[in-house]
C-alpha cells in the first residue's frame, strides 16, 4: 500500500508543490522522482516476495478506481521511475537557464504521476483517465516553448492524433465493461469470441495511436518541437510506451485475428518507419522514427504470442532511447540545431558524450551483449516459432537490419565532420546520459530473473537465429556507416523521405473531410440565417413598403419571422380599404361562408 502510494503520490506531490511554491523546481522534481523510484523499488521488491498489492477509491457509482500492482505492472512502474529520474537529472542541466523552469518541472512531475497511474491502473476507467492525462501532459510538454513558431501546431497534432486513436480505447472499454459488467481489467480479460475480437481491434487502434504505429506515426516525428528531455521521456518509457503496455497487459485476451492485425501493423511499422529514419535529415526526427520502428518490434512480439519479449524490448528500448535523446540534447545544446548537417562532427567535440551515445546506439542496433540484443533475440525466436504468420520473422529481421543501418548512419555523421570546440562541460546532462547508457548496456543481465518473476520464459529457438540477428545488426551498422542513405535505399529514398505519403493520405482521409464538413456546416448555418433574412426582405419588398417605418429603432431589429409576416399584414391591410361598401361586401361573403359551414358542419358530425 505505502509503496503504491509513494510511487504515485511522490511525483504528483512534487508537481503540485513546484507549481504552488514556484521554488527550486529541479530539486523538488528530482526528489519527487527519486521518492517515486524508491516506491517503485519497494513495490518490485514486494512482488519478488510474491505479495500482491491493490487499492480502491470511490469514483463513479458501481465503478470504483482501483490500483493494482502485479509483477508486470510493478516492473513497468520501476522502469518508468528509473527512466524519469535519469531524465530529470539530465533536465536539471538542460533547463538550467530557462525562465519557465517551474512550469517545465511541474508538468514533468505531473506527467510522470499520470504515467505511473496508467501503469498501475487496475480498472479500465482509471486506465482510460491516465491514458488521456498523459496525452494532455505531453501536449503541454511538447508545446512548452509555445512562443516559437510551429510549436503550437506540433503539440496540437500530437494530441489530436492520439485522441482520435483513443476513440478505439473508449469503445473497447465500453464494450468490455458492458460484457463483463465490471470495470476491473483482470476480470474483463476473460471476454472471448466476437466481443474480444472487436475489443482487441479497437485496443490496437488506440495503441497504434499512442505508440505511433502506422498510420499514425506522423505526430511523433513532429513532436520534436519540445525540449529534448521531454522527447527522451516520451519516447522511452512513457507516452509512446503506453500503447505497447496496453497491448502487453491485454495480450491474454487477444484472439488470433487481433494478433494477426497486431503483427501486420507492427511489422509494417518496423520496416516503414525504419526506412524513414534512414532517410531522415534531422537527428531528433531520426530518433523519433526509430522509436516508432522499435515499437513495431514490440507489436511483432505480441503478435507472436510473446508479450514478455515485447516487455523486455520495451525496457531495453526505454533505457537506450532515453540515453540517445539525452545525447542528442547535448549536441543540440552545442550546435543549437538538430539537423544532421549542422551536427556533423558534434560527437567528436565531446567524446565522452559521444561514447555514451554510441554505446546506446550500438545497443539499439542489437549488438551483444547489450540489452536490446537479448530482447531482439527473444522477438526473433518468438516470431520464428509463431504459427500465426510466416512473415513475422522476416519483417522483424528486416527491421533489425534497418535499425542497425540508421544507427550506423547517425554515428557516422556525428563523428565524421569537423570538431568545433565544445562549450562548457555539462555534468548533469552527462550524468543522466551515462546512467542510462550503462543501463542500456547491462540490463540484459536482468532479463532472465525478470522472466522468471513474470512466470513466462521464452522458449529456445534454433541455433542459427542469434547468428542471423547478429549478422543483421553488424551488416546494418556497416551499411549505414559506409553508404549514404540515398544510395542505400535507391528508388525508395524519395518515398521514405516523405514518409511514403502515409501522413498526407491520413490527413486527406480524416482531417480534410472533417474540416470540409465543418465548413459545410458553417455554410449551412449562414445559409439558414441568410435564407430567413432574405425571405424577410422579399416579404418587405412584396409589401411595397407603403410606409417607411425604418426610422423606428425596432425596424432594424425586427426579426426575420416578423419581416416575412409584414408583407402578409400589408396585403391584409388592403382589405381594409376604408370603403364601407367594399368592406360590407366582404362581410357578406363572410356570412355566406358562415352559412356554408353551419350547414355542412352538422352533416359531418
Amino acid at each position, binding site marked *: 500500500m505505502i509503496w503504491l502510494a509513494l510511487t504515485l503520490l511522490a511525483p504528483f506531490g512534487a508537481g503540485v508543490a513546484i507549481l504552488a511554491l514556484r521554488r527550486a523546481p529541479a530539486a523538488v522534481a528530482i526528489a519527487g522522482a527519486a521518492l517515486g523510484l524508491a516506491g517503485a523499488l519497494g513495490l518490485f521488491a514486494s512482488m519478488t516476495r510474491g505479495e500482491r498489492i491493490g487499492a480502491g477509491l470511490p469514483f463513479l457509482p458501481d465503478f470504483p478506481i482501483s490500483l493494482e500492482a502485479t509483477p508486470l505492472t510493478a516492473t513497468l512502474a520501476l522502469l518508468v521511475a528509473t527512466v524519469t529520474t535519469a531524465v530529470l537529472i539530465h533536465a536539471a542541466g538542460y533547463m538550467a537557464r530557462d525562465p519557465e523552469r517551474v512550469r517545465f518541472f511541474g508538468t514533468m512531475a505531473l506527467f510522470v504521476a499520470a504515467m505511473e497511474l496508467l501503469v498501475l491502473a487496475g480498472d479500465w476507467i482509471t486506465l482510460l483517465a491516465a491514458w488521456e492525462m498523459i496525452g494532455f501532459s505531453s501536449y503541454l510538454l511538447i508545446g512548452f516553448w509555445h512562443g516559437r513558431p510551429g510549436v503550437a501546431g506540433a503539440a496540437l497534432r500530437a494530441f489530436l492524433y492520439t485522441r482520435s486513436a483513443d476513440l478505439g480505447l473508449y469503445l473497447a472499454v465500453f464494450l468490455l465493461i458492458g460484457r463483463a459488467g465490471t470495470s476491473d481489467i483482470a476480470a474483463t480479460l476473460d471476454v472471448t469470441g466476437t466481443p474480444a475480437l472487436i475489443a482487441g481491434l479497437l485496443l490496437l487502434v488506440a495503441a497504434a495511436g499512442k505508440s505511433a504505429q502506422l498510420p499514425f506515426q506522423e505526430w511523433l516525428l513532429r513532436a520534436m518541437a519540445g525540449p529534448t528531455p521531454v522527447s527522451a521521456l516520451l519516447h522511452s518509457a512513457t507516452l509512446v510506451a503506453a500503447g505497447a503496455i496496453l497491448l502487453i497487459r491485454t495480450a491474454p485476451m487477444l484472439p488470433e485475428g487481433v494478433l494477426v492485425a497486431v503483427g501486420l501493423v507492427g511489422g509494417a511499422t518496423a520496416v516503414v518507419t525504419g526506412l524513414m529514419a534512414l532517410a531522415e535529415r534531422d537527428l531528433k526526427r531520426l530518433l523519433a522514427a526509430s522509436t516508432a520502428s522499435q515499437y513495431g518490434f514490440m507489436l511483432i512480439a505480441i503478435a507472436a504470442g510473446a508479450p514478455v519479449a515485447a516487455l523486455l524490448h520495451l525496457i531495453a528500448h526505454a533505457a537506450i532511447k532515453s540515453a540517445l535523446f539525452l545525447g542528442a540534447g547535448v549536441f543540440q545544446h552545442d550546435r543549437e540545431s538538430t539537423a544532421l548537417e549542422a551536427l556533423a562532427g558534434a560527437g567528436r567535440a565531446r567524446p565522452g558524450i559521444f561514447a555514451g551515445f554510441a554505446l546506446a546506439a550500438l545497443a539499439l542496433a542489437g549488438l551483444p551483449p547489450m540489452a536490446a540484443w537479448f530482447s531482439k533475440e527473444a522477438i526473433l525466436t518468438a516470431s520464428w516459432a509463431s504459427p500465426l504468420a510466416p512473415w513475422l520473422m522476416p519483417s522483424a529481421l528486416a527491421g533489425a537490419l534497418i535499425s542497425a543501418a540508421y544507427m550506423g548512419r547517425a554515428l557516422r555523421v556525428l563523428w565524421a565532420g569537423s570538431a568545433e570546440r565544445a562549450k562548457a562541460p555539462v555534468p548533469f546532462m552527462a550524468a543522466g546520459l551515462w546512467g542510462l547508457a550503462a543501463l542500456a548496456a547491462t540490463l540484459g543481465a536482468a532479463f532472465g530473473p525478470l522472466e522468471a518473476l513474470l512466470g513466462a520464459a521464452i522458449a529456445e529457438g534454433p541455433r542459427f537465429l542469434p547468428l542471423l540477428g547478429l549478422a543483421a545488426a553488424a551488416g546494418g551498422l556497416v551499411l549505414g556507416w559506409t553508404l549514404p542513405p540515398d544510395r542505400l535505399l535507391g528508388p525508395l529514398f524519395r518515398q521514405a523521405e516523405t514518409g511514403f505519403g502515409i501522413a498526407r493520405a491520413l490527413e486527406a482521409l480524416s482531417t480534410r473531410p472533417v474540416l470540409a464538413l465543418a465548413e459545410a456546416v458553417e455554410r449551412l448555418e449562414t445559409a439558414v440565417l441568410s435564407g430567413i433574412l432574405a425571405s424577410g426582405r422579399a416579404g418587405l419588398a412584396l409589401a411595397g413598403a407603403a410606409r417607411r417605418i425604418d426610422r423606428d429603432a425596432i425596424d432594424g431589429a425586427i426579426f426575420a419571422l416578423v419581416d416575412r409576416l409584414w408583407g402578409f399584414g400589408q396585403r391584409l391591410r388592403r382589405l381594409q380599404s376604408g370603403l364601407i361598401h367594399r368592406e360590407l361586401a366582404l362581410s357578406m361573403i363572410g356570412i355566406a361562408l358562415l352559412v356554408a359551414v353551419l350547414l355542412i*358542419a352538422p352533416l359531418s358530425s
Partner: protein
Amino acid sequence: MMGRDLSFLLPELVLVGTAMLMIVAEMLRAARLGLAIGLAGLATATLLTLPVLDADTTVFSGTYRIDALSGWAKLILLPGTALALLMVRAEIGGRLREGSVHALIVLVTLGALMLSGAGDMMLVVLGVVLTGLGSFALVAWPRDDAATEAAMKFLIFGAVTGAVMIYGLTFWFGGTGSTLFADLGRLTGRPLVLAAGLTALIVGLGYKGALVPFHFWVPDAYQGAPVSIAAYLSVITKAAAFFALAQALRDLPREAGWPLALGLIAAATMTFGYLAALVQSNLVRLLAYSSIAQSGYLLLAVVALGASELALPALLVFAAAYVAMNLGAFAVVLLAGRELSDLEGFGRAHPWVGLSMAVFLFSLTGIPPLFGFVGKLGLFAAAIDAGHLWLAVIGILNSVLGLGVYLRLVVPMFAASERHGAMPMPAPLLTVIALTLAVTLSFGMVTGLFLR
C-alpha cells in the same frame, strides 16, 4: 314575484337611476357632479352585485338571467366602466357636453349588462341596438371629419348587421314560438332554421365583438373616436357581446355546427388581427387590431361551451384580464400620443409609466405571471378540453405573432431618445394606470386564491 325579481335587479336599477341623475346633472351643466354621481353609482352597483353573485336563477319568466356569468360580468363591466369614465374625464374634461358623454357611457354599460344577462332574443336585439346607438354617438362626439366618418362607418355596419340579425332571429321565433334561448332545444332536427338563427346571432354579436369578417369598422371607429372612447368600446361593449353569445349558445346543441364555425372565425380573427396590427404605425389603430386579435382569443372560450366546464370560467377570467390590460394600454397611449413614433424613448423619460406599458403589452401577449397569461391558460385549457386542440395550437402560434406586434411598442419605448420632456400627468389617468397595473400584475398570481 315581482318584488323578488326587482331585488335581483338592484344593480341595474341603481345604474338606471344613476344615468337619470347624470342626465339631470348634464342639463345643469354640472359635469363634475355628473361624473361623481356616475362613479358613485357604478361603485354602488358593483357592491350590490356581490350578494347575488352566487344566485343561479332568472327574472321575468326567464328573459333576464341572474347567474354566475351575468354576475361576474357585472363585476368586470362596472369597474371597467368607472375606469373608462376616468379616462374620458382626463381626455375631454371641461369640454362641451362632457356630461352627455358620461351619461351615454353609463347607458351603454346598461346595454352591456342587458346583453350579458340576456335570456331572450329581444334583449339581445335591444342590447345590441342600445350599445350600438350610444357608441355611434360617442364616436361622433368630436364631430370633426374623422370622427363623423368613423361614426358613419360604425353606424352603417351596425345597422346592416343588426338588421340581418333581427331578420334571422325571427326564424328562431318561428321555429319555437318563444323568444327565450332556453327554448331553443326545440329546434333539434331542424338544421336549416337553426342555421338561420345562428348565422344571424353570429353576425350581430360578431359585429359587436369585432370578429372577422365583421370587424371592418373597428380600426376606423377607434381611430376617429377620442382615445378614451376607443378604450371603452374595445373592452366593455366587446366583452358584453361575448357574454351574450355565451348566454345564447350554451343552450344550443353542439351538433348544430356552431363550434366549428366559431372556431374558424376565432382562428381567422386572431391571425388577421395580429397580422394587420403588425404593419400599423398609428398606435390607436394598432391597438384596435390587437383588440380584434384578442376577440379571437375570447371566442375560444365560447367555442368550448357545452363541452368543457372550464369554458365559462375561462371566458370570465380572460375578459377580466383583457379589460384591465387593454384599458391600461389605452391609458398609456392617451398619455404618450397616438403615433408609434411618440413612444420613442417614452419609457426612459417616464420609467414607471413605460414599465406599466410593458407589463400591459406582455400581459396581452400572454406571458406569465401576468393576468393575461392566466386568462390565456384558461382559454387554451378549455379549448383542448373541448377537443379543439387545433384551435389552441393556432392560438399559441398567434401568441408569437402577437409578441412581434407588442415588441414593436416595447422596444422603442426604452430606446435612447430626447423626444420627451416633462409632460402633464393627469391624476385620473395615473389612477387608471395604477389600478389596471395592480390588477394585471397581481391577479395573475393571487386571484386563484379567491376563485371557487
